[in-house]
């Protein structure tokens, strides 16, 4: 069975592009745009990897990450955070809260693929 990625991001064209390259690479891609209900979506799926944007409508990516790490069912799922370039504090916060990895926008498709493969393969 294809491994599952849940992409939590609110920018439609980014969702489309990342979904396309991951699907082409053999992943099953689920997407979710709302911060408020994101943690619940992760619990219901649950995916092999979560890609989580920091800035989401409803609830920040940091809050969602904290929820995921505090729940037995989701605490071990690798989470790759998407942060804005140069926001050192965001990166520190993401790592403190238990993110597995972070990527800074704007990233390249090659970076996305490389990191997704490394995080789930590991």
């Amino acid at each position, binding site marked *: 069975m294809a491994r599952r990625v849940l992409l939590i991001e609110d920018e439609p064209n980014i969702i489309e592009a*990342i979904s396309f390259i991951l699907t082409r690479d053999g992943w099953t891609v689920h997407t979710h745009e709302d911060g408020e209900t994101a943690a619940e979506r992760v619990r219901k799926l649950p995916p092999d990897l979560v890609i989580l944007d920091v800035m989401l409508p409803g609830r920040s990516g940091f809050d969602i990450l904290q929820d995921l790490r505090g729940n037995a069912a989701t605490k071990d799922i690798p989470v790759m955070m998407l942060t804005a370039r140069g926001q050192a504090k965001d990166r520190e916060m993401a790592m403190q809260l238990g993110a597995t990895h972070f990527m800074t926008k704007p990233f*390249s498709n090659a970076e996305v693929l490389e990191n997704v493969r490394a995080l789930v393969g590991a």
Partner: protein
Amino acid sequence: MLHRSQPGKRIRARRLEQGLSQKDLASAIGISASYLNLIEHGRRRIGAALLADVAQALEVPVGRLTGAGDAAVLQVLQERDGAEGTAEAFVEGFPSWAAAMADQDQQIAELKGRVTELTDRMAHDPILSGALHQVLSTVTSIRSTASILVEGAGDAEWEARFHQNIHADSLRLAEVSQALVTYLEGPDDSLSVGPAEEAAIFLDRCGHRVPEIEAGGEADLSSLSAGGKAAVQGWLRQYKADAAAMPLERFDRASRVAGYDPAALAAEFSVPMVAAMRRLAQLPSGVGHPDIGMVICDAAGAIVYLKPIDGLAVPRAGGACPLWPVFEALSQPGRPLRRVVSLPTAEAPRLTAYACATPYGPVGYDAVPLMQSAMLVVADAPTQLPHVVGPGCGGCPVQECAARRDEIRL
């Protein structure tokens, strides 16, 4: 969109591509970083000779910096990640999209540079934060979509869809970047260059030192207007007097021994402390001295002289943070201060600041004494905990500050 009349933007974009700082490039072509900054922002014209030097240092043909030779589209696309071999086919197949994408690439490089500069402000200014988040999201989307198109999506329907997305993103990026530029550059661009600003630019360009005077000769002022020459005369007279009282070779050695302490050097050379400060700010760069900046203000807090360095965020035009020691010294004339200071961001360098306020001008019975305060800042990486000083309230992240000017205080 970039215009042919704006080589500054192209220089900046290319410099960032090369991973060079303004300081790196400026020193490679023999001008000061602040002058390069003015050129990059289109506030100074660049002559043909200097442009040729820049092009050589950035390893590009001059045409690429002036916008001529727009076969550059192909070059730009070839420089994209993973575009080798497919770029030519893309340019042939979709010439107008390819041109749009090349333009976007340059726009992206330029915006990336701006984003890097504004990182610290970004977290604390809601307007900037919102706009930059949009820029980054759009740039991310464009980069990802363009990359898929360059490699080929393998399906006509998908390709049409991605073309549509990239078009929508480019419109959004244009709109957001226009709004950003208006927000960031609005008030400053309307300032015209008066003699004082011309003189300040001249000093920034020469790095606030005149090798000809050090060698016993005269400064070359041929690039200045009559007003600019007049504005710089006082500084040059003082420079000559300081150079005579503190000859370079001996002062260079002594400053290293004294750890750049202006009070110690003033004692050694029997000069006022402010003279030793001025001379320290004239030390040559690139021979092992730390970066040294200097500010002089009058009793009203107006900045009358500024030699900027990284971390010395005192705006020439006013609105400076009153916590800088240069202003503190005004309340204790004649008493030298030494403070370790730093801007309130993780990346800001710690600086050792020396300040002292002294009277100047003629003295007279019952006349109001004219005071000025001078501050030298030395980037010598002190280890003590710093006094936090701000870049001015507008860009300052410290909200709980008694010195804030956000409201009327009676």
